[in-house]
């Protein structure tokens, strides 16, 4: 395979020793040792904020360690920038994608590389090589598509190709599976195995223990910036890993008490809607959720889930059809009126849509109620009431924060998610739309969110749970609907659903009868 | 309250006469402010140097309330005469002058000394720039072959309006068939637009141009490039384009300044208005020596000057 970096040496071993990295107020890495050998998948585990990404960013030259050293192939190195790491054959796929959305795939790949044509870009050549590379690893992409037009899964392919294109033989994959469907995870694992077979090495970060156990050779666990230990995957199990990560026992199967469903609280009738790009996103969707019931909506992202949630929440006008909440036709109601009627909405992209990062925790709690008593009277905010409310929620939801005045941006991802959840659930909702509520959360936080949703179900709320994580849906839902290309393929009782069947439906294979 | 002074008792030799001037643009603007600066330098020489006349200035005081602060500050420093060289400064003077009854102020260009408001320590001075404008107009009309003449102005007020009104009248009196196109560019500083306005005039057939205020230097360059004639005002612009500048109306503010200084030294602090005119030599038409002006044009110009001086020629200016 001829890449511009075909001369790049193979990484035979990487050793990080005694790595310390401090941020203001946090020691993100506290004397961490970590190593990877050629042909191995080494997983990195840890709760949110344990320091996984930081350690890998140091290895990739994005951060400089305060203490400690890195050796590649036995020689000590210092990486002043990613360029140095790239030259050593290291590549990284970041937790938050590093793609320029307005550029094409080929342009993103060619970015920063010298052109074979000197002053002029050689995008056709890049595209050709990219196709070849894609074929080789089973990662097909259209080199001329613009990145913003791609699904998340496709974007991830681009990220991996970008790294491979640069001749990397050590790949760092930071939570690559958080946004993938089971099918896509399978594909990714196939690619990883193929790469390892070619003598590459991979660092794999994930919160999903079964993934880690199935793909990796060795596993290192971090907690609060310190290394807890490294084990061979074959020699450990989920429970032990969870204990290492969290420091206590974790239940994987949430307790789901039987609840008799009540009347229909949320009904969507023959809804059609368009996406932001103007293409049809929902084509005649009908769905009903009863009180005391969790309906899971499964599907590969980009099949209309986002639009459906927004139509229900009042953020996207349907071109056709109605939405009923608690029996009332709210199709023409604005978002805040629906919220006041009893709708809670946990948006998928919570950093973007769910919180205002520079606002304090307390301010984020009143995002929906800043004009309502007791938080405001005649438009004037009431600090005491807001503070009391915040303290109560922080306590009830065990949100890790120095105080209600701390800006939300200083909290860890899991705690930010808890802020959104607390805010929405504290309004005693009758209907809850929760989109990907545990994406990116560690097992402790995930466990907590699940418990909360079940508690709301028990309290009689109607819950629409939108998730790509089939395990999550299977564990929580009473009924499961599958969406594909804007249509509901089928609605199954949870008891009749299994991953294979759901997977087929999600892939758009016609109603799997029987 | 202002600083008390007793300048009238002091013998002339005892200390220099002190003038402060506040100007809207820079002392080298080739126009309004430069003419005042040069007048003060000239007056200083005539009076016998810095020992006799001391002067300070604040330039670029286009912000009216900054100018007011400067005027007040100079007044409290005990200057003998404070000149507010800009019509926009009038209302500031009106407010400050009563606080410093022993200090003299001068306001230009206007004829209003605020005597009606009971203020007695303000002089007023103006340039009857329509006079030179008229003379320039006469020459322009005679020199124009196309009969189309272009004028570039800043905004349609004040000194600019006077000059342009006079210029138009001069042209019309000489050649009633001539056409005077006027372009106000809406700014005192946009040289590029002034230049383009000049080009527009030329495109429209003008072969003689004039203009007023500091941004016209841009127009002069255009005239030069196109070999079109130029008449200047406020200062001598011949050096910019010796080939095509025909004549300039030049202001000599000493004609107003000298009697003011004398008055003050004699204990009269204000109340009088001075005009620069062709008659009193405050306005002069300076022919560009490098320009070969036909004799009959020069004669006509001189005759016009004479006519204005002795009152035979009345120039209609004013109201909308």
């Amino acid at each position: 395979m001829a890449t511009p970096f075909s001369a790049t040496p193979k990484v035979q071993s990487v050793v990080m020793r005694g790595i310390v990295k401090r941020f203001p107020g946090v020691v993100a890495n506290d004397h961490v040792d970590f190593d990877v050998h050629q042909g191995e998948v080494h997983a990195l585990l840890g709760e949110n904020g344990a320091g996984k990404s930081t350690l890998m960013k140091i290895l990739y030259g994005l951060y400089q360690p305060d203490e400690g050293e890195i050796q590649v192939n036995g020689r000590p190195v210092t990486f002043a920038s990613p360029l140095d790491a790239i030259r050593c054959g290291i590549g990284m796929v970041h937790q938050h994608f590093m793609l320029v959305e307005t550029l094409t795939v080929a342009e993103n790949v060619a970015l920063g590389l010298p052109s074979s044509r000197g002053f002029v870009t050689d995008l056709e050549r890049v595209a050709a090589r990219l196709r070849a590379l894609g074929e080789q690893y089973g990662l097909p992409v259209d080199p001329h598509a613009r990145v913003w037009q791609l699904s998340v899964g496709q974007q991830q392919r681009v990220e991996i190709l970008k790294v491979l294109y640069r001749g990397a033989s050590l790949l760092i994959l930071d939570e690559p599976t958080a946004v993938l469907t089971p099918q896509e995870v399978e594909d990714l694992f196939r690619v990883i195995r193929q790469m390892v077979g070619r003598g590459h090495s991979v660092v794999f970060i994930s919160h999903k223990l079964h993934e880690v156990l199935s793909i990796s050779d060795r596993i290192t666990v971090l907690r609060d910036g310190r290394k807890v230990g490294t084990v061979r995957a074959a020699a450990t199990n989920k429970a032990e890993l969870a204990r290492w990560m969290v420091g206590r026992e974790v239940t994987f199967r949430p307790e789901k008490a039987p609840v008799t469903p009540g009347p229909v609280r949320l009904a969507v009738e023959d809804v059609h809607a368009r996406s932001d790009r103007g293409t049809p996103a929902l084509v005649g969707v009908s769905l009903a959720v009863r009180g005391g019931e969790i309906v899971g909506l499964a599907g590969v992202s980009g099949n209309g889930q986002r639009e459906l949630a927004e139509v229900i929440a009042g953020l996207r006008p349907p071109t056709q059809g109605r939405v009923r909440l608690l029996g009332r036709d709210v199709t023409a109601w604005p978002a805040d009126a629906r919220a006041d009627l009893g709708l809670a909405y946990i948006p998928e992209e919570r950093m973007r849509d769910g919180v205002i990062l520079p606002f304090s925790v307390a301010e984020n709690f009143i995002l929906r109620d800043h004009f309502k008593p007791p938080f405001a009277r005649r438009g004037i905010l009431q600090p005491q009431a807001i503070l009391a409310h915040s303290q109560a929620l922080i306590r009830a939801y065990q949100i890790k924060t120095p105080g209600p005045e701390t800006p939300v941006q200083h909290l860890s991802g899991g705690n930010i998610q808890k802020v959104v959840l607390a805010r929405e659930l504290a309004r005693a909702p009758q209907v809850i739309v929760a989109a990907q509520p545990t994406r990116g959360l560690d097992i402790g936080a995930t466990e907590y969110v699940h418990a909360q949703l079940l508690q709301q179900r028990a309290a009689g709320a109607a819950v629409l749970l939108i998730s790509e994580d089939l395990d999550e849906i299977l564990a929580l839902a009473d009924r499961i609907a599958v969406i594909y290309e804007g249509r509901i393929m089928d609605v199954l009782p949870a008891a009749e659903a299994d991953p294979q069947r759901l997977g087929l439906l999600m892939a758009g294979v016609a109603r799997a009868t029987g | 309250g202002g600083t008390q002074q007793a300048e009238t008792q002091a013998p002339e030799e005892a200390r220099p006469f002190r003038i402060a001037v506040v100007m809207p643009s820079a002392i080298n603007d080739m126009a309004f402010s430069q003419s005042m600066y040069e007048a003060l330098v000239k007056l200083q020489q005539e009076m016998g140097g810095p020992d006799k006349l001391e002067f300070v200035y604040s330039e670029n005081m286009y912000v009216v309330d900054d100018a007011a602060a400067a005027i007040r500050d100079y007044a409290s420093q005990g200057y003998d005469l404070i000149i507010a060289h800009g019509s926009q400064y009038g209302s500031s003077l009106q407010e400050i002058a009563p606080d410093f009854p022993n200090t003299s102020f001068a306001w230009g260009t206007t004829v209003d000394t605020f005597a009606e408001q009971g203020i007695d320590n303000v002089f007023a001075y103006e340039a009857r720039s329509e006079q030179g404008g008229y003379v320039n107009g006469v020459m322009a009309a005679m020199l124009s072959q196309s009969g189309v003449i272009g004028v570039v102005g800043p905004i349609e007020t004040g000194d600019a309006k006077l000059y342009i009104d006079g210029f138009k009248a001069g042209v019309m009196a000489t050649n009633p068939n001539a056409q005077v196109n006027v372009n106000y560019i809406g700014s005192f500083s946009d040289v590029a637009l002034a230049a383009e306005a000049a080009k527009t005039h030329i495109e429209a057939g003008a072969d003689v141009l004039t203009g007023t205020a500091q941004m016209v230097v841009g127009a002069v360059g255009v005239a030069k490039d196109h070999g079109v004639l130029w008449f200047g005002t406020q200062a001598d612009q011949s050096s910019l384009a010796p080939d095509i500048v025909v004549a300039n109306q030049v202001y000599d503010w000493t004609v107003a300044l000298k009697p003011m200084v004398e008055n003050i030294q004699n204990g009269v602090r204000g109340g009088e208005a001075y005009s620069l005119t062709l008659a009193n030599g405050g306005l002069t038409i300076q022919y560009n020596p490098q320009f070969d002006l036909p004799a009959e044009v020069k004669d006509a110009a001189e005759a016009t000057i004479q006519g204005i001086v002795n009152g035979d020629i009345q120039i209609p200016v004013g109201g909308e």
Partner: protein
Amino acid sequence: MSTRWQQRGRDMLYPLAAAGLAFLMAAGVLAALGASPLQAYAALVKGAFGSRNALAETLVKATPLLLVGLGICIAFRGQVINIGGEGQMIVGALLATALGLAFPHWPGWVMIPLAMLVAMMGGAVWGGIPGVLKAYYNVNEILSTIMMNAIAVQLMNYLLRGPMIDPVQAQRASQIPQTAALAAAYRLPRWVPTRLHLGALLAVVLAVVVYFLLWRTGWGYRIRAVGHNPHAARYAGIPVKRYTVLALVLSGAFAGLAGMVQVYGVNYRMITDGSATGFTGGAGFNGIVAALLGQLHPLGTIPAAVLFGALLVGANAMQRAVQVPSALVTALNGLVVVFVVSSEYFRRRARKRRLLQQTAASAATAVAPSSPED
């Protein structure tokens, strides 16, 4: 609490040191021009703070800076860049002046508040147009506010030459483009014998009001929410576009008020020299600088406006005292602005280093301590 104020105090050192450095650089130029820097800067300080009158002048200069700056705080908190302060001042002043001249015989306590209201409305309209254009037509507000400034200037020139011209001037040949003077009863009360007028006090009161508005009311909450994250604001049911417009409307209203205050408090009539700065003194621009130096905090903008006002007033005094060209003063102001805004970097770095040291020293805690950056 006290450590927070200590911190604030320490933070003030950086901009001051930066300004000092700028002055030091300009000292070289002063010396080259044959002026004694020491004497020049002494004159500057004296001109800005040296006497009751100097102090009053500084405050008079600071008043429109503060008023415009308050509007800027609102706009920038709502993430709209309002460069239209100059035009908004002009339009506000035009309306207030027209009102005062149209009804010259009302009691002052009726006219003055009314004129303020009208001026705020004028500024609000002039700011609201770019607001509507931005929210509903995707016209960038930097572009539209720059254009609206130019339009306001020409509108002023037209009105002051024509419909609104002083009747006395209308009859004169020179036709100075100015309005008649306002009735004496309409002048903002002054702290005689200086020019310090009620507007200064009003501006300070309004700074508190804006603080209250932004952080203690639902409307302010919404403006800030929309500014920080329009997506989340929309998800929470806040009408984002309307609040974008509101941010510019309020911002314009404060600039409009600044224009009125200049007329009713300082000049008592409107005069044009053809340019915007001739009337505004550049406050529409410099107010932005003041607000940003005040960290976009209404209360922080108070000292920032006073310091900037002092710089402007003092520099003019320096020009008078040592007869340096005004050009040097302008260049010096520019240097000060660049140096002061750059000093923020060193302040942030020092704070970060301090936190890192604390982190290294103390045992690691899982969550970062609160250090609100706003």
